[in-house]
């Protein structure tokens, strides 16, 4: 009986000393984010019938770290990997993983969206940031088609200006590799997107 008490005490002490708390885990598609904060995907996620999108952002100031995992939409038409339901929120970050087989890998109308280190492969559209008039950024990302997948990308990266596009690769997309829509004012550098 004493040993378990020691163990419990020690474990409690570890928690108290470190004091850290991980980001909120996401372990399945169909996740609705209604609270600002930091979220991390903890496994590969696959869309099940009736789910859309895999991860929905429904509030301001949200960071989603895919944790190196993959979101797969199984080629379901109209189903996005991560989107905001075309509502305009302030501040959303998506980074660090792969999205495949979706209608749009990422589709935001929100203000100040930042996409960093994201691979969107074999989606109908890779990364779409459609906020009218407020700035977004796509950096260090790849948005290519992928033969053998259900969709061929229509567009790799498609953004409304003003936005900043830096160090991205967008190749082999059926319609265009990179589009800057609407008014001018996008900053674009070191993109491989002929």
């Amino acid at each position: 009986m004493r040993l378990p008490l020691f163990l419990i005490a020690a474990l409690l002490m570890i928690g108290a000393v470190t004091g850290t708390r991980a980001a909120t885990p996401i372990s399945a598609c169909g996740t609705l984010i209604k609270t600002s904060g930091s979220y991390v995907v903890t496994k590969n996620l696959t869309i099940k019938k009736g789910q859309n999108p895999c991860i929905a952002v429904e509030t301001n100031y949200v960071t989603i770290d895919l944790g190196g995992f993959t979101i797969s939409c199984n080629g379901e038409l109209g189903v996005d990997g991560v989107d905001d339901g075309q509502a305009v929120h302030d501040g959303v970050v998506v980074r660090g993983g792969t999205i495949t087989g979706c209608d749009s890998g990422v589709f935001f109308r929100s203000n100040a969206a930042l996409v960093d280190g994201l691979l969107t492969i074999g989606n109908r559209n890779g990364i779409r940031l459609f906020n009218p008039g407020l700035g977004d950024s796509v950096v260090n990302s790849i948005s290519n088609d992928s033969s053998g997948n259900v969709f061929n990308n229509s567009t790799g990266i498609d953004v409304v200006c003003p936005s900043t596009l830096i160090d991205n690769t967008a190749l082999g997309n059926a319609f265009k590799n990179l589009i800057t829509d609407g008014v001018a004012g996008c900053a674009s550098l070191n993109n491989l997107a002929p």
Partner: protein
Amino acid sequence: MKRALGISAALVFLSLATAVSAGPTAISACGKTITKTGSYTLTNNLAVKKGGGTCITISANNVTIDLGGYNINCNAVANANGIATSGLQSGITIRNGFVHDCFNGVDTYTSGATGAMIDEVLALNNSNTGIAVNEKSTVIHSIANGNTNFAGIFALCPSNILYNTAVNNLVTPPSIACPDSTTTCYNDIDWFDKGDGLCHFSCNAYDPNTQALIFGAGSLGSCP
């Protein structure tokens, strides 16, 4: 024997706890003053309470704050900054999160601190300036939109202001100190509409209408 085993187990866990504690120091509430060099990380969203001041004050050199993807919300409390230095500190890094509805989102400028690294900070809807730094600093991959009374990003030269997005801010004349010949303001979107029919820019920026890179500060035709 059982007692000895119990003590041994506790000692093992204590040493584990000590080893784990070598990680970043957690910050879980506003009102924090950092007085020791080191690495700090947010463990949740932080909010300034009514009557509160700056959420995190840095009073030591060589401090890294990882916002952990969380946000600092100053709730529009008067003169409350999200993160600010208190003096002439150097070696400050702030990264990976949001600072919003503050007076200044991140301010290492006012106290005179130099050499700050601001990386992937989204400073939105602050009432004065989104991100303000002194010379020898880098601001990279950040977004500073909707900072209503001054600049999205304010930097003294020489600094590197790289690959940021800053729109829908207001800069009251005179404009920011950038650029001079020793500062790189490169591939930033940095323009703002003051409501006077002109599109102003405060640092080397892309012309919002032609996409040509403009050097210097000034104004041109209306913003899109």
